[in-house]
């Protein structure tokens, strides 16, 4: 019995290793592995592949509320104090307080229904994007989920020279 169980475990382990090895090599580009850059992550059903820096800025500031496929945008950020949030907001040349004020003003003016969602973990951010066709979030490239889609910014992926979200 013990032998059978050992063999069974080995078979399962081998299977997992096989799946893990093949799955990873197919879905994550080599340049993303180990990259510290922030990846712009969207729902895999979203047909957007590329955004310009200007478009990304419009999205983050709420001036653009829909994707090209008409899906309403849902911005998901990490909570204040996290590296991902700080870097995304710094790319707008704003402080977190200024970013918050900007969004509160938009809500006050009726230009936005709510401030961007803030969640405590990358896992939760990824889950929201997974559940929302229009979701977009920002994750350090090495922490990417395999089932989400990474958008190029100015034609570049994280880890490539000239990628703007360093």
């Amino acid at each position, binding site marked *: 019995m013990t032998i059978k169980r050992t063999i069974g475990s080995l078979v399962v382990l081998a299977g997992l290793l096989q799946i893990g090895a093949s799955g990873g090599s197919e879905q994550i580009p080599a340049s993303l592995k180990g990259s510290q850059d922030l990846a712009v992550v969207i729902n895999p059903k979203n047909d957007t592949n590329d955004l310009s820096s200007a478009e990304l800025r419009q999205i983050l500031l709420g001036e653009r509320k829909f994707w090209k496929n008409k899906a309403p945008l849902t911005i998901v950020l990490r909570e204040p104090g996290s590296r991902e949030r700080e870097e995304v907001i710094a790319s707008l040349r704003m402080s977190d307080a200024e970013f918050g004020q900007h969004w509160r003003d938009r809500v006050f003016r*009726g230009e936005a*229904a709510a401030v961007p969602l803030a969640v405590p*973990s990358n896992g939760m951010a990824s889950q929201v994007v997974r559940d929302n066709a229009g979701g977009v979030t920002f994750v350090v490239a090495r922490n990417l989920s395999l089932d989400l889609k990474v958008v190029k910014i100015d034609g570049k992926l994280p880890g490539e020279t000239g990628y703007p979200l360093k």
Partner: protein
Amino acid sequence: MYKNLAWGPFKTFSLSAHLVIITLVLLCAVASAQQPASTPTDAETVKALLQRMQDLEDQVRTLKSQVQTLTAAAQANPAQASPKEPAAGDAASAAPVTTPAPVTTPAQVAEEYGSATQAHPMEMNTPRLQLRGFGDVSWNAKDLAGSTNSFTLGQLNLFITSRLTDRASFLTETVIEADSGTNQFGIEPERLLFLYSVNDHLNFSVGRYHTSIGFYNTAYHHSALMQTTMKRPFLFQFEDSGGILPVHNVGVSATGVVSSKLGLHYVAEIGNGRSARTDLGNNPVQNVTDENNGKSFNFALYVRPPGIPGLQFGASGYHDHLSPVVLVGGVPVITPNVQENIISGHVVYQTNQFEFLNEAVVLQHAPDSGALANNIPAFYSQISKRFGNYRPYFRYEYVNVPARDPLYSDVALVHGPRAGLRYSLSESAAFKIEFGRDMRRNLPSVNLIGTQLSFAF
């Protein structure tokens, strides 16, 4: 015997052989699986995985501590841990007033430990009310004969939004405010809107809104904290405070982006318009009944160039018919309708550090009787710069109503400067001190001083 001789040794050999063969097969499988990755990136992959493991362990530690906190909270207050379920019949009415429940579900955890104003991701499609309040208290004095210096309760503004779906939302600003003449409090929904977004080019809103004339009226609403100065420019003063513009309107509005590359936006509005200022003491905002069948139309275009963050310029045109009623010997008498046309233009530059607001309006009243039309020119220019928590500001404003204007001749000519200092106590509170001088036609000038504490909660 045959079985023993033949099967016994074979059985022993077979077990070992099986193990060896299976182990070899597994090793081959593992080896083949790893083969494509056996590149110079192996070390990086291992490093990345280790780092990820470390991150996950950190997250587990955080979650464990949160669970312990929640468990302790639930044990400390067992009464809340088992809320009674409402009877089926009372479910709808009981829902908004439930006893606070312990933080046990993922939604509650997200609420507690995520963002205080955000729904849990799983609740994103559930309507969720968000309430924010604004208030202010001032002290004002002026050297006008007969006036007294007074502490003044400003507007208590309850600002509520609710995201109904990913395209629809609700917004309301309910203001509780005391009348300066009677000191009696009144309550009024200053804005009440159902908003629906079709796409970036078409957004509808229905209800009571701030008319898109110029910049100030749609940038600043009923919160003293949000604006730099103590008070709005007289040009954009609210109707019930003597303002001459139709600041509020009830109707339908459409807004959207014309060109995102240029940053060109449009606003088109149709509504009841404001009523003529009369002796009857009616609310100037026609919330329920329009005084005539003519509707007000407003169309505005403005540009926010993407390359120059903070810059906005634009123009708008507004048209309505007003039906003034005057009291003659105590009897209301309807006078000929007056066409009201308003043209406005603005150029503003506003960043977190610096603001320069410039707006000009020409309001025209043309009686249908054929009498001469009257033009009311007005403008203001405001500049301020932030130095840490301090923001000194200066504004000059001008409104000139001709004496023969059928509606607002009592306003006459008013112009003068405002200078002040705003000190931000925090993101949610500010203290302001302001000096001003109102110069008036054929009347002595009035000097003003005021202080104000404005806050959000």
